[in-house]
């Protein structure tokens, strides 16, 4: 029934309406650009300072990790710092959101973040591929990460029966899963990418994964002497917590109920307004308090992020009402809901995608280009 309802609500915009929507969305962007200034600069610099303080104090507490309260607080602070660095700082800085500050340490093209995936590989797979070809089946590699079947248009195979387990494993190892993602192992298996190319591409990934792993699992524990087991366990726990959190937030971005998947869209001939519409229909927001948005790197405002990936993310909550109003004016569904609701929708999609199409119907509507 819901499938039918969504079908009825798919926006049918005339060319004029689409152009008007595009102009309204451009105007929102221009207004934010004009307002950018000292408060945005202060926000990101203070956040960097806080994440750093959380990391230093978290790691220091783990050195006293034989005491359970110190260990717990240490894990909490270290997880917090990792979440902030990876999501609200790293992801957003890598988009070039703060390039206008001209601050070399916050420059999108040169930033290297504190997680396993090399920033260079992320800039390609995420900033370019995912944000340009969002939700186009066969082009957006984030659509199931070459591993999961998340759209009806992806042909089913019995191996997909294992996908709930694979998704759980991916959540726990998310840092590494993302690092490996850009290597396109699926393309190597399919024979469209050579083994030699894979080995070339793998070198920086292996180096970064090793460097990150050695730091958390060898160097810091060794430095702690008798506290080594507590530090090792603490770092492992912080990484796991951050992994599961990042996985959950990111799966809520494009996989909840009602998110549209696309087939056969030629991005090269798509207008800017049509690209905007695809970003809105292919993304979903999560509602929550201010701290939740910060901890999600404002990916909870996935729609605003996909419309304006290089605007400072802390501006998304301010413009969400304007974006939503523009959508409502033109009858474009604006997908939002509580975090538990959106996460449940995304996990249901994982389960449904595992089953053969004969048994279930995915709610996703593979729609032709509009």
């Amino acid at each position, binding site marked *: 029934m819901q499938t039918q309802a969504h079908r009825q609500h798919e926006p049918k915009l005339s060319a004029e309406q689409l152009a008007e929507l595009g102009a309204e969305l451009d105007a929102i962007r221009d207004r934010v650009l004009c307002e950018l200034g000292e408060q945005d600069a202060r926000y990101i610099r203070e956040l960097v300072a806080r994440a750093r303080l959380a990391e230093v104090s978290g790691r220091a507490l783990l050195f006293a990790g034989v005491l359970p309260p110190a260990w717990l607080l240490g894990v909490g602070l270290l997880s917090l710092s990792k979440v902030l660095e990876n999501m609200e700082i790293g992801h957003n800085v890598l988009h070039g959101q703060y390039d206008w500050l*001209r601050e070399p340490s916050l420059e999108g093209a040169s930033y290297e973040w504190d997680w396993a995936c090399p920033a260079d590989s992320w800039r390609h797979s995420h900033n*370019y591929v995912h944000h340009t070809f969002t939700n186009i089946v066969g082009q957006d590699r984030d659509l199931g990460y070459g591993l999961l079947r998340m759209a009806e248009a992806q042909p089913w195979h019995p191996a997909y029966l294992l996908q709930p387990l694979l998704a759980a494993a991916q959540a726990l190892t998310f840092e590494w899963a993302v690092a490996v993602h850009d290597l396109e192992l699926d393309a190597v298996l399919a024979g469209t990418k050579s083994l030699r190319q894979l080995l070339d591409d793998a070198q920086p990934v292996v180096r970064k994964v090793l460097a990150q792993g050695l730091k958390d699992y060898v160097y810091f524990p060794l430095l702690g002497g008798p506290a080594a087991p507590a530090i090792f366990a603490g770092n492992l726990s912080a990484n796991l917590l951050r992994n599961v959190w990042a996985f959950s937030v990111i799966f809520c971005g494009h996989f909840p109920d009602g998110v549209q998947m696309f087939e056969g869209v030629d991005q090269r001939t798509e207008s800017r307004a049509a690209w905007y519409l695809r970003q809105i229909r292919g993304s979903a927001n999560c509602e929550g308090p201010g701290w939740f948005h910060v901890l999600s790197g404002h990916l909870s405002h996935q729609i605003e992020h996909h419309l304006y990936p*290089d605007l400072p993310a802390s501006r998304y909550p301010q413009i969400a009402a304007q974006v939503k109003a523009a959508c409502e004016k033109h009858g474009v569904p604006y997908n939002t809901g509580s975090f538990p609701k959106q996460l449940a929708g995304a996990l249901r999609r994982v389960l449904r995608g595992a089953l053969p199409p004969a048994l279930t119907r995915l709610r996703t509507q593979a729609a032709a280009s509009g």
Partner: protein
Amino acid sequence: MTTTRSALPSALAALRRPAGALLRTRLVASLTAPRGVDHYVQLLAPTWSSSQIRARIVSVDRETEDTVSLRLTPNDNWLGFQAGQHLHLSVTIDGVRHTRTFSISSAPCEGSPLRLTIRAFPGGRVSNWALRDARVGDVVELSAAQGQFVWRGPASTDLLFVSGGSGLTPIRSLVQQLLHDGHAGQLTCLHYARGEVLFHSELDALGRAFRNFRFVPRLRAGLTAPAAAAARFSLDELSAVHPAWQQSEVFVCGPSSLEHSVRDAWATAAPATQLHSEHFRQVASGLAASGADAAARYQLVFEKSRAAISGHGAASLLEQAEAAGLRPAYGCRMGICHTCKCRKRSGVVRNLITGQVSDAAEGSIQLCVNAPLSDLTLDA
């Protein structure tokens, strides 16, 4: 050049170098990767860095109505300078970092702190910050000293310095150092100023103290038009001030009009001697070139591609580069993914989506959504 140890207790100061050496080890690099050790040490010591030159402002002194001197104590990464050299100063103003080039007005013989003397001009972001907002204790970033506006020749050579306005700053440094080093040749400093003369009493005093140094200021303030025109550089003027000018090597620093007239005079009258010049440009905050001229052609230099092409303001830099057979990196071609981002060394561009016009200073731009509004040099 050594750094002032300020208020640090001497025991702590003695630990500074070994601590610095420890912080530069590979182990510390591994523990602090990928952010790097500076990121963490900044919590405690904002001027410490493993590689960057950071400096603390220790005094701010008005020299004239529109000119200010900042004295700076750099950290241990500062390797010193030669008299006459300049550096890049980076400061954060309203959250945004700005970098400009300034000559060092102190001389190496004067030791630390080093001094920059900056004249504010209307619309000058950094120069007005220096004049009005710079405070003792602020931390700024410096580049290494650079430039060939230095004297490495024999001490017996006669040297002539011609300067305009704040172009006197590197010359003041050169004169102090040369006199300190016992330069034997004649040093003549011909200086043009509109208003107050920088370092006036100091240079006058040097003129009295050293037989081989003359300071000749030429003031244009308060003069009527013909007299003001006469107070411009000319060969007649030069012959009157310094008859033996053809035997001198000349150093010129000032506005480009001054540099050109000296250069022209030298090319015709004294081609044998060498001319050293240092020009400075005022980088106003853009908009000067905002009127896009459809017919205008610009020279676009793509440094990485080793190519200079002729361009126009009607299409993106990416399209124009590709049309000329260049292959700069690109991604979405619509301004969202930043794959085509590159350094703009100089020049003005207009954003084709927002219509925003950049300033002329160095910065980074996206090739796919920017069109030229002037000649450009790009690291692409």
